[in-house]
């Protein structure tokens, strides 16, 4: 029997910049659509059905003593291929438990900073999907921003650190992943905050996330200050944390900017997006550290696995912020857009509380990359 590796072990290798060789045995179309990336991971694709009669075709690509991690969609075919490799004399063939489905669910916490009065800020990196969520801790309380569906991971993190989850915030109504905010608020007895303009159709109670409604975490008052920043959605709201960190949601990323079309209103929202990126954000301190809700490219991960940048630096080098001409900007964010995220319409409906798919269906809906950005 071939050895196995967990998504946690693989995530640590990637974040720690270890040389990692991955053999993805899904079919080539699936592989090209969405794959494991980041750190020093090298990846080869050879569909499992080409290996049923033997793995000799891999001999020229792989070294039999080298560690190779076999990955498939759900963890079935990868066991078979790892066994075949093992029988063929490969000493270090591992199968990734649960495949890409499990990889999509893994969250890797990375500490971003200490905040004033003993607080701290963590970024949870969803390596398999490029989603970033945040935990702000202070004085035994925790606020979570843009929480993913896998609520148990945040619960466990809070429990281990002895914090009570008091506030759950979504910077906007997500279309690429199912929010865990509402569920966590129910479990932990916290308050769920959502921008009211994104919440007109919701079927549940929430606290309006808007300018002027500052939120404090813990007695030491880590300030969470909402800034209205529409464009990706009409309600999109950024958050300034502790006067130093700017959580931009899906408006501004490190190498790209938000796309305005996922709610079907691209033309209406282009002006808002332009206004937010080219005026509103420019009024903020350029020394704020931008912490987005997504990343799209493996190279956006820093050496320690975090994704961040100084706002002023992004005005120098993010291609989406360098377009002076309004018409040209409009073209960039409405034409030749990448495909929309998998099942994005049903994901929005789920986040509005209009439909309630079961866990297995939710996993299927979230398959694939986030695709919330448009590159300039």
């Amino acid at each position, binding site marked *: 029997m071939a050895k196995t590796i967990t998504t946690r072990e693989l995530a640590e290798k990637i974040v720690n910049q270890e040389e990692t060789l991955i053999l993805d045995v899904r079919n080539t*179309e699936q592989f090209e659509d969405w794959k494991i990336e980041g750190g020093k991971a090298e990846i080869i694709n050879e*569909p499992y059905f080409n290996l049923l009669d033997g793995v000799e075709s891999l001999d020229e690509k792989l070294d039999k003593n080298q560690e190779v991690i076999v990955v498939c969609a*759900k963890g079935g*075919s990868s066991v*078979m291929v790892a066994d075949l490799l093992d029988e063929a004399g490969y000493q270090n063939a591992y199968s990734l438990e649960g495949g890409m489905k499990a990889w999509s669910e893994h969250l890797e916490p990375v500490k971003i900073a200490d905040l004033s009065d003993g607080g701290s800020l963590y970024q949870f990196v969803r390596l398999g999907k490029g989603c970033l969520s945040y935990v702000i801790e202070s004085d035994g309380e925790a606020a979570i921003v843009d929480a993913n569906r896998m609520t148990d991971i945040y619960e466990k993190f809070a429990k281990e650190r002895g914090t009570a989850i008091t506030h759950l915030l979504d910077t906007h109504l997500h279309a690429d992943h199912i929010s865990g905010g509402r569920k966590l608020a129910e479990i932990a007895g916290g308050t769920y905050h959502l921008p009211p303009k994104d919440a007109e159709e919701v079927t549940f109670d929430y606290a309006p996330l808007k300018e002027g409604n500052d939120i404090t975490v813990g007695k030491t008052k880590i300030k969470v200050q909402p800034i209205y920043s529409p464009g990706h959605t009409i309600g999109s709201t950024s958050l300034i944390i502790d006067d130093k960190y700017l959580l931009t949601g899906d408006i501004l990323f490190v190498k790209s900017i938000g796309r305005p079309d996922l709610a079907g209103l691209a033309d209406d929202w282009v002006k808002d997006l332009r206004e937010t990126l080219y005026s509103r954000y420019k009024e903020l301190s350029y020394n704020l550290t931008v912490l987005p809700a997504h990343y799209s490219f493996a190279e956006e991960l820093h050496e320690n696995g975090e994704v961040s940048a100084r706002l002023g630096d992004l005005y120098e080098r993010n291609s989406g912020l360098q377009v002076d001409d309004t018409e040209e900007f409009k073209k960039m964010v409405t034409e030749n857009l990448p495909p929309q995220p998998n099942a994005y319409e049903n994901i929005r409906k789920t986040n509005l509380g209009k439909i309630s798919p079961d866990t297995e269906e939710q996993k299927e809906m979230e398959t694939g990359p986030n695709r919330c950005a448009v590159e300039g």
Partner: protein
Amino acid sequence: MEIAKVLDAKGLACPMPIVKTKKAIGDISSGEVLEVHATDKGAKSDLTAWAKSGGHELMKDSEEDGVFKFWIKKA
């Protein structure tokens, strides 16, 4: 359409539907048609890619009540 063989791969998870399809196609002659029934959601894109790589023709596919059916003409 004349069916040379029917393969029931319902309830089997990846990679078994393809492993069994590959074996079954070995039992029929070139130009004959194999009908495959499967319930694994990944079966469609894998069977399509597998048939293409082997030069077989995926003539038709359908889905009803969670059962996927495929008709593959052997190369």
